[in-house]
């Protein structure tokens, strides 16, 4: 076997691309969970974003409009979840599952005529001098803009949560909704907005899959990426910067597995392609077995229904 065929520059570059959709979806879900809501429908929102983004990009000829379409699609479908859980006080676990099942169905339906088309793409960012640096240039500094937007979004979320009053309020609502209500904060409104933000991010993540990563539309193309995003939020202990680490870790596993397949490593393609899912399980076990650490940062009201009785 010839491992020298693995080019570290190409590996690092494709790792960043593989990590981006998961990172986008996960940072949205992190905000949602910080507000005390567990939305298990990330997979459904991602696939709707993927199809909406794809169709908009193909019809308008612009990948940027595609992103806009994906964001709107994600917001729209997450608003169903928000309405069910915040206004009609439905069970969050069941509503999230419903969102995923519905999203998979609806995306397949509207994407019916779009299989096999190539979508318009993004131009890569070209920073004079920097992008020409050896190794770092091609590996890290010459991607499409979304890769950097993803990282920027994580930084912005960190700033919002830890440095602004509204971020503090959002954390407070997630920590103890009864106390936040008693202080006069609008729990439902805040959570509703967080859910829509989560929908937007998941939609963008989905669009990145269908417009850049793959790039084409196929039914069920998210293949569990939304669920992995959920796992990454747990892995990151609800901390934005650890989330980048988590996304790159999974990006790395995916890329490694694909490259080993390409090299024809003798353990069977089927077994290699299980790797991302098995790694997710192993990481979840490692994080959750450390009971003190995993529960320390979990929002206190996560998944609980809020009703301002009396």
């Amino acid at each position, binding site marked *: 076997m010839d491992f020298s065929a693995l080019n570290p520059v190409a590996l690092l570059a494709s790792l960043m691309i593989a990590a981006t959709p998961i990172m986008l979806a996960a940072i949205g879900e992190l905000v949602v969970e910080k507000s005390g809501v567990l939305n298990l429908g990330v997979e459904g929102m991602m696939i709707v974003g993927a199809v909406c983004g794809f169709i908009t990009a193909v019809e308008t000829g612009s990948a940027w409009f595609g992103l806009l379409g994906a964001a709107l699609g994600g917001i729209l479908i997450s608003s169903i979840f928000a309405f069910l859980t915040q206004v009609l006080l439905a069970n969050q676990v069941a509503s999230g599952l419903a969102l995923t099942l519905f999203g998979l169905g609806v995306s397949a339906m509207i994407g019916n005529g779009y299989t096999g088309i190539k979508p318009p793409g993004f131009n890569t960012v070209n920073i004079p001098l920097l992008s020409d640096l050896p190794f770092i240039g091609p590996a890290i500094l010459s991607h499409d803009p979304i890769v950097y937007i993803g990282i920027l979004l994580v930084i912005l979320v960190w700033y919002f949560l830890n440095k602004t*009053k509204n971020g*503090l*309020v959002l*954390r*407070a609502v997630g*920590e*103890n909704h*009864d*106390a*936040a209500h*008693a*202080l*006069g*904060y609008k729990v439902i409104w805040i959570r509703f907005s967080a859910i829509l933000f989560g929908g937007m991010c998941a939609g963008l993540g989905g669009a990145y899959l269908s417009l850049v990563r793959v790039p084409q539309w196929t039914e069920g193309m998210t293949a569990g990426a939304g669920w992995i995003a959920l796992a990454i939020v747990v892995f990151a202990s609800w901390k934005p910067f650890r989330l980048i680490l988590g996304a790159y870790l999974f990006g790395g596993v995916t890329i490694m597995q694909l490259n080993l397949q390409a090299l024809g490593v003798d353990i069977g393609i089927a077994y290699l392609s299980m790797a991302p899912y098995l790694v997710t399980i192993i990481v979840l076990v490692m994080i959750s077995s450390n*009971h*003190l650490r995993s*529960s*320390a*940062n979990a*929002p*206190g009201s996560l998944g609980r229904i809020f009703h301002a009785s*009396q």
Partner: protein
Amino acid sequence: MSNISLLEIDGVSKSYPGVIANENVKFTIKTGEIHALLGENGAGKSTLVKTIYGLVKPDKGLMKLNGNLYSPNEPRDARSCGVAMVFQHFSLFNALTVAENIALGMESPPSIDRLSSKIETISIEYGLPINPEKMVGSLSAGEQQRVEIIRCLLQNPKLLIMDEPTSVLTPNEIKTLFSTLKKLKREGTSILYISHKLEDIRSICDTATILRGGKNVGTCDPKKENVRNIAKMMIGETIKIPKKKSTISKLIALEVDCLNWVPRDSSQKQLKNISFKLLKGEILGIGGVAGNGQDELTDILSGEILSNKSTIRLFDNSIGDIGINKRRLLGLLTAPEERLGHAAIPDMDLIENTNLTAHTREKLVKKSGIIDWKKTQEFTKNIIKEFDVRTPNAKVAAGSLSGGNLQKFVIGREVLQKPLVFIVNQPTWGVDAAAASSIKQAILDLASTGSAVIIISQDLDELLELTDNFMAINSGEMSQKINTQGLTVDEIGLMIGGTGAYWKRHD
């Protein structure tokens, strides 16, 4: 205190389905007075203060603040008018720091650094020491209350509402609180002080308004009025004082020997070196401030948490390592503190809730595992009858019962199984006086038939009234056992604070 009225409450009414919480309530709070709002659990005090704080909108009636119409739509309105509130169940966020918690209660907080120094200034000025960078979850109940008070003081309130502020404090902490309140009063702040404890009110309040069944049944000067009269106004009927006759034998019913327990989870308290003997027919009181290990001790004694075999002995059996159902069969029964969600399940009916704990000792499940629902129903009806549980029938969800009725059901369910040892945590917490009195009598009667009882409580008066012997619990350790007779509240206060002659620390 002046004669200028600060807040006039005029004919406020509020009803919920099936309950009238407030009916035509009228009274006036003057500038710079400490005004008590006195009443039993369920008298409508909470609804009224929530109305003043903008959390509840009244169906009818007016409020005037400084002569102007006052109708807050939300707490923010109330705060901007100078009304601040310290909640009974603190509205604090455990995973946030003291400074962040305080910032959340302010309209436009300064930066966290500037706020922290402000907090330090105020905390020194009012004798409320606190570290602004600490996580609220790591503070004691008394310290958490300080956070709430400082949060209010930073807004320079004209009216400070305090809902049952002493219920979680040690006698020493109560003294500190009262001196803070007196200082505020001297500075011209009015305080609306909600409580059901007559003693507290007599020591610091200038005026008392008494609520019963949602109505204002009188306003008086609590220092001048006869205690019995106030109690009568508050309760409306004369409460039977429980009768006690001691029947302690020499036989040891329960023995705890060198119990050490380390929690898995940081939210629980470690227990250290606990040893005591409980005699047949004895009522032992365990007193302490909330969160000092009472819940953990209850769960370890009941068998929800297992320990070493030899640490707990029930008569001739070592039971430290056997589960709750086997302990029930041997005669050890428990009524935990949290009624809804631990002792009973709110969404299930009373019959199902009977089966929850009575299934082993009352043989409500056949050998095949089939539940005998008929027998369960009969036992439930018996509980309802013997303990006067006010409910339309046995098929009503436990959560729809009032606190007092549910507690009568929970206590009745265990007592009627004839326990040899009965452990009860906070038997009358949040229960109306009539129900509390019948629960107390039931516990005394149980002991007089030879059962041994442990009462774990934060209500020191209750412990003085019911128990033969007393132990204090503090930071997961327990004091020596002493005779309750002759103990004063002050001595107990020292003991539950963890100091005094009855402590032998094992370090």
